[in-house]
């Protein structure tokens, strides 16, 4: 009884002389391979050549500083509570006298860690941030041999004063009516 019409009848017919030679079949197979040598290659020779990212690409995070070089983050914890992968942890501390040039507000993040193995690069932290502090950039998280080295602390995440990271393409201008 036939249940579906997807079944195939297997034939056991004898091969012709041409098929028995095998060489035409091999040559036509090689021909397909040969054709691909003239096509544009799909991959890039990274890291010598890098692909251009779209402006909404979500790569490694950056903790921004303001125009005067003070850290924007106040350790409010909204990024951590919005993170679906629970990748962000932080400890807050109070700004002391004389540290006004380092931190913008009276509270700052003494410890700020993102576990890049947990992070799913959804960008919700960036969306939750009320202080313009965290942004996802078009930088790639580099590979490593140890799991511990994927827990990125402030030494990696905070942008250097002399080496600012441009996020103008990602910056949104929200309007509330």
């Amino acid at each position: 009884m036939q249940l579906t019409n997807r079944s195939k009848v297997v034939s056991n017919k004898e091969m012709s002389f041409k098929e028995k030679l095998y060489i035409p079949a091999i040559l036509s197979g090689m021909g397909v391979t040969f054709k691909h040598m003239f096509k544009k290659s799909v991959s890039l020779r990274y890291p010598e050549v890098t692909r251009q990212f779209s402006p909404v690409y979500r790569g490694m995070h950056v903790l921004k500083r303001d125009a005067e070089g003070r850290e924007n983050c106040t350790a409010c914890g909204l990024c951590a509570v919005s993170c679906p992968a629970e990748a962000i942890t932080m400890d807050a501390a109070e700004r002391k006298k004389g540290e006004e040039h380092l931190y913008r507000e009276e509270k700052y993040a003494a410890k700020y860690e993102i576990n890049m193995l947990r992070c799913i690069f959804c960008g919700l932290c960036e969306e939750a941030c009320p202080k313009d502090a965290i942004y996802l950039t078009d930088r790639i998280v580099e590979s490593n041999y140890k799991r511990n080295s994927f827990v990125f602390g402030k030494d990696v995440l905070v942008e250097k004063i002399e080496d600012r990271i441009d996020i103008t393409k990602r910056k949104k201008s929200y309007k509330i009516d």
Partner: protein
Amino acid sequence: MAKVTIDGQTIEVADGTTILQAARMIGPEVAPPTMCYYSKLKTSGGYCRTCLVEVSKGSEKDPRPMPKLVASCRTTIMDGMEVKNMTSDKVIDARKGVVEFLLLNHPLDCPVCDQAGECQLQDLGYEHGSAKTRTDFERRTFDKIDIGNKIQLHMTRCILCYRCVKTAEQITDGRVHGVLNRGDASEISTYIEQAIDNDFSGNLIDVCPVGALTDKTFRFKSRVWFTKPVDAHRDCDKCSGKTVVWYKGEDVLRVTGRKDQWGEVEEFICNTCRFDKKKTSDWTIEGPRAISHQSVISANHYTKMVKPRELTLNNIKTIALTEGENK
């Protein structure tokens, strides 16, 4: 006894009950929000105007509606009164205005403020306010004063609800702080910058609806939604000793009174319990505190989670066998 209808729900209450108390008896869906009224403090209420309601029928004898919106915390009910709270457009509009006024001088430093997450002004602004301010003026500022090593005062955040003043007057003996100056310039202060130290002064932190009075021992330690509240008690000769202990990991970060659904403490606790007992061994733990699932404090807390078993080379065979049996 008098019958009152609030938002279409009728309840019979004793004479002399205020509209707010009657609404709270019906339930949280009709109860107007409050910022200054505190049922445990006498003569509180009447300052903030957030609990304004519309009285569409004065009473059975005089069915005319009241001409203006009334403060429900200070208006007593009459037999046959009909009150509109959330069903009245006038009330919703007025409350939006009240929130805008409360936020006129309130600094929006929620990312820094320790009260964020359990702040009544945040809830009120979220539910009843508009997302934008219309004022162009500078917010008021104050000279910072130190009111002791236990309580932190942020005068800029204060909404002048007078709750802390009434707590100091009614719960502790010998009030040393009050509201100085008038109008726009009024501020909570102590005379000659005297430190507030009294066995029950810590309750000022609990009654404050905003982050104006916060726990100095908890200052910037953690956001409230990273801490886990548990009910705990201890034998205390000064107070009932029934508290909520807020944990982060193994550490007790702070101790507060137990707050009910209206954000009011059930019992006032003493300063020894609040500030000095910060070890698990000091407390008898009763169990996790029930927090509304809508609160940010219960974000990322899983109550019904079964932890998956860890697979190692030693137990992989036994797990496979037991799970095979289960199937």
